[in-house]
Every structure is written in C-alpha cells, then in structure tokens.
C-alpha cells in the first residue's frame, strides 16, 4: 500500500484545528526516539528602573513561547507547570510527549535599564539548573520581537542542532479587487506589510539569498514579466521580459540561478537564468506545458510539472535538463512541487475527488503521504527547517494561508483578513 491511508479526519472546523492526516512524524521522528523537550518559561523579572516596560517584557515572553511552540520541538509551560498558551496558538500545538521523568528545561528573562537602554538578559538552563545559553539583548522602540525570535532560534539550535525559523518571513500575493500586491509577514503571522503598490496583478514571489531581494511576476507593463525588488535600495529591476509568460520563479542559492516558466517558444518551457536575467538557458524541450520548477537544495536537480502524459504530473530532471524522470504515476492532476531544504521530501498538490490535497513524497516518487486532505490547497513552500510548509487553501470559499507541521500533522492559520492571499514563499533566513 502506497501509504494513502488517511485516518478518519475531523473536518477542519476552524483555522487552528488539528488536521489528522497520517503524520510523517510517527515514522520519522519518533523512530529516532525524538520527543518534545519540556521547558518552563519563567515570569520575566523586571527591575524597578525598567518598570515602565513591564508590558514589553510580558509581550516578549509570549513571543518567545509562541516561537518555541511553533518550532515543533518544545512543550512550553508557565512557571505553574500549566501549558503556556500564547494568544492565537491552538492547544493542539502545545502538547507534551510522554516523558521520561526528566526535569524540564527553564528559560529566564531579566529586564533592566542600564544607562537608560532597555535590555533583556535571557538564559536557557537545563533540568539541573546548568546554563546552556545566555544572551543580552538591547530592545529599542521596535520592540522585543526581533530579540525574542533571535533567542528562540538559538535555543532550537542548541537543543536540536537544526536551524530555527523564528526570524524568517513569508512573502505572498494579497488580492485587492482585480489586482494583487506582494506582501511580507513574519513567520508567526505578525507585522504584515505591503512591498508593492503597482495597482496591477503581481504574484508568485520568490526570495533571494539572505532576503536581499524578492522576485515576482507582475503585469505592470501589461504582460506577465519577472521583476526583482531589491530590499536595500527598494529599486525594482526587470529580470525577464520575454514575450508570453515569465512566471513561477524559483531561486537556487547554490547555483545563483533562477528557474522559471517562459512561453517564448510557443508553449510553456522551463528556463534557467541568472539573477539579472542573463544567460537564459532552455531546460525542457517538449510541446507539453512544462512549468512550476523547484530546485533541489544542492541545485543538481529540478522538480517540475509537465502535462506531457496528458495530465499534469510531477517530474524531475537534472539541472541541465537531462535525465527527465516521471515521479507521480497515479495520473491525478498534480502541480506545484516544492523540494525541502534537507532534500528528503518533495511536497506538491494533487487533485483527488475534486479537492487538491497537500502531499509529500520522496524525491524518487516513493512513500507518498497526504498531509492536508481538505480545503483545496495550492502552492506549498517549505520553511528552512524542512518541517513546516506554508500553503494557500480555499476554505469557506476564500483563499488564505496556512502553515502545517508535516511531522506532527498540525496546522495553523497564518494571516487573517477578508482579502485572499495566494502563492506564498518562505525565506531561508
């Protein structure tokens, strides 16, 4: 059996409900003896000089709790040993694994105001009270979120050896009437802001290395061209303005190259090109629609969608376009492959019984598992931890963005607002 078993799932009743698809977690992480680490988040100590910043300290504690919970690696308690529930976080996300009886780790925060500058001293202690991490952060008018995200990533790295995602951001297209603009939001759903104001259709943002720029398709010149918005200078540069489509960009940091869809040859083909659109190289040579490329992390292969069999399916090819192999054999309409940074999974969406399900499979097509069954899902994008995926989902009629923990089978809604949000991209840093 190809792993299509889906446990009798409750319909997603609300944005924070658990999706009981057969989680990858059961086989992957538990098999390695992985359990969530229990940690107590102590009440912040705020000394008298910083008393006016007590709310900043409390908000900071909540941000830190949310970051640890959203990493998927921790069970977070308050100092009364109750599960810590930050605003907007579902209970289902903060659940203890069966313990070994170890004493929980502990995070302490001490806020002071030396020389008039608000500072937070954060410490991570193990169950025996030994300090594992200690950092001092200066907190300015922008608030404590940046400092807390940074510390959370340090904690994740310390405890698991893996990269944290608390400082990452998600870009997406927010619809506005018949147009759409590129927006960015912190990975936890806070601080959304618009990056473009072009009053046209813009979609499919794609992060450059180090968040130095965002590329996206825009109809601002009347045709779907590819542009790059540099974050430092805020300059907008054209990258590709070939006749026809210049769409579905994906950036490979290892090769410093885009893969994208061009229809200049009369039908949709995948091309690679440099960051400014130079050295375009055609990779696919087939009259079918070939689109939606996704680089492997090393840049040696590209997963993509092709309907050369008559139905769109997921394929993979080498970076030079050779050695094309079909991965999905079921013949169900499939699109939007996304390759995880650790190289272990390709996520994509697959239409079954009229609904697009979010699925993962191995890079050779084996071991396929449904991660999200309901809601008509599209455009998955991995976080750098190779564990979380952001995607768009049409629930209750309008499309919004959701994040799923592929290993735990947990979902959360990313952003609210009545205007639809589509084509998300998760920054690597």
């Amino acid at each position, binding site marked *: 059996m190809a792993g299509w078993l889906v446990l009798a799932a409750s319909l997603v009743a609300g944005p924070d409900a658990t999706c009981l698809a057969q989680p990858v977690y059961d086989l992957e992480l538990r098999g390695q003896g992985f359990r969530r680490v229990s940690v107590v988040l102590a009440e912040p100590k705020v000394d008298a000089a910083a008393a006016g910043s007590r709310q900043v300290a409390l908000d900071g504690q909540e941000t830190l709790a949310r970051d640890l919970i959203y990493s998927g690696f921790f069970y977070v308690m308050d100092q009364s040993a109750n599960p810590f529930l930050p605003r907007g976080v579902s209970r289902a996300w903060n659940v203890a694994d069966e313990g070994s009886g170890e004493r929980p780790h502990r995070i302490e925060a001490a806020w002071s105001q030396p020389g008039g500058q608000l500072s937070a001293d954060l410490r991570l202690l193990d169950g025996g009270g030994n300090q594992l991490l200690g950092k001092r952060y200066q907190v300015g008018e922008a608030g404590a979120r940046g400092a807390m995200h940074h510390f959370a990533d340090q904690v994740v790295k310390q405890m698991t050896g893996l990269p944290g995602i608390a400082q990452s951001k998600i870009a997406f297209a927010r619809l506005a009437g*018949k147009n*759409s603009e590129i927006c960015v939001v912190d990975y936890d759903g806070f601080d959304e802001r618009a990056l473009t104001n072009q009053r046209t*259709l813009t*979609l*499919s943002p794609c992060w450059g290395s180090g968040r130095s720029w965002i590329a996206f398709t825009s109809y601002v010149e*009347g*045709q*779907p061209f590819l542009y790059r918005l540099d974050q430092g200078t805020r300059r907008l540069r054209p990258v590709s303005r070939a006749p*026809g*489509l210049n*769409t*579905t960009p994906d950036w490979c940091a290892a090769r410093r190259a885009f893969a994208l*869809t061009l*229809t200049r040859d*009369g*039908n*949709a083909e995948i091309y690679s090109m440099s960051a400014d659109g130079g050295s375009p190289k055609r990779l696919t040579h087939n009259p079918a*629609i070939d*689109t*939606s490329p996704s680089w492997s992390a090393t840049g040696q292969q590209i997963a993509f*969608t092709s*309907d050369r069999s008559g139905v*769109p399916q997921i394929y993979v090819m080498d970076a030079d376009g050779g050695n094309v192999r079909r991965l999905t054999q079921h013949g169900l*309409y499939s*699109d*939007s492959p996304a390759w995880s940074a650790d190289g272990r999974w390709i996520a994509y*969406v697959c239409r079954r019984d009229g609904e*697009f399900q979010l699925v993962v499979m191995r890079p050779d097509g084996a071991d396929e598992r449904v991660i999200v069954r309901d809601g*008509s899902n*599209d*455009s998955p994008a991995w976080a750098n931890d190779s564990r979380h995926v952001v995607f768009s989902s*049409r629930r209750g*009629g309008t499309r919004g963005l959701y994040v799923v923990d592929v290993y735990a089978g947990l979902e959360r809604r990313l952003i609210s607002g009545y205007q639809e949000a*589509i*084509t998300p991209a998760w920054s690597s840093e």
Partner: protein
Amino acid sequence: MTRTMRVAALVLLAMAVLAGCGKKTMETPPPVTPPPAPAPQTTPPPPPPPPPAPVAAPTLNQGDVQDVFFDYDKAELRSDARATLTEDGRKLVASPKTNITIEGHCDERGTVDYNLALGERRANAGRDFLVSYGVDGGRIKTISYGESRPFALGHDESAWAQNRRAHFVVTP
C-alpha cells in the same frame, strides 16, 4: 497658331514676295512684331474633385468579436468554439484595420501555476485558428491571466464555465 499670328505670317510672306519682285532698293520692311499674346490668367487652378469615398468595412467594435469557451482543464476548440471563431475570422478578414488581443482565462479550480500556462494555451488556440483562417498574425496579440481575472465571481459550474475562455479585445 492664333488668328493674329496667321495674319502676321501672311503679311510677312507677302512682303517677302514683293521684296523679291523688281524693286532693288526695297527697304527692308520693318519687322512685324506680333501683338503680345494675351497675359496668362493668374486665377488659381480649380480644386481637384474629391476622391471617391473608400468602400472599406467599418472598424469592428468590442462586441463584434465573440469570445470562445472551453471544457475544464482543456484548451481544445469545441465545435461551438470553431463556429464562433469562423465568424470572428470572417469579420476580421473583412476589417483589416482591426487589431485584437486574445486573453486566455481559467476557472478557479486548478492551480495557479498550471492555470497560467493553460490560459496561454487557450489564447494561442484562438490565435492559431484565426491565422489558419486567414487573419494576419501580426494583428493578434495574446496574453494569459490564468485564474486571476475571472468574469464571473461565483463558485459553481455556471460561473466556472464563464471563466474558461479566450476573450477577444479590440485594440486601437
């Protein structure tokens, strides 16, 4: 030759004959200066008559070129689409000054990435038919909007069927 000039010529001839008959000391007759020709008229030439009105077909209006519709996930032209395109082609051939843009559209149910390419395929299907019919390809542009610019905003088949189309825009 005008009459005056003919008279003068005869007079000259007569005098030349007489000069040749017996009189040796015939004085050379004074040269006859023909009277000056009448000064040319300085009135402007009459305006040329207006050219005949061209018998070209009128430029097409937006509603004259009908859209065509497609089945779900398909870019093939159904027989009703072919009939519509034949009529569109006839009008376009008869109205050579009209240019068009063909927009390819999809309904909301597919994926964003694939629908952009499918929309392009639908626009191209319309274009290829018209070019085969005889419309000059230079008059036709194409663009795909995928599922991003639906005509009908509902979430049922009647709306979806409206959105799976090649939409013709008459461009100036």
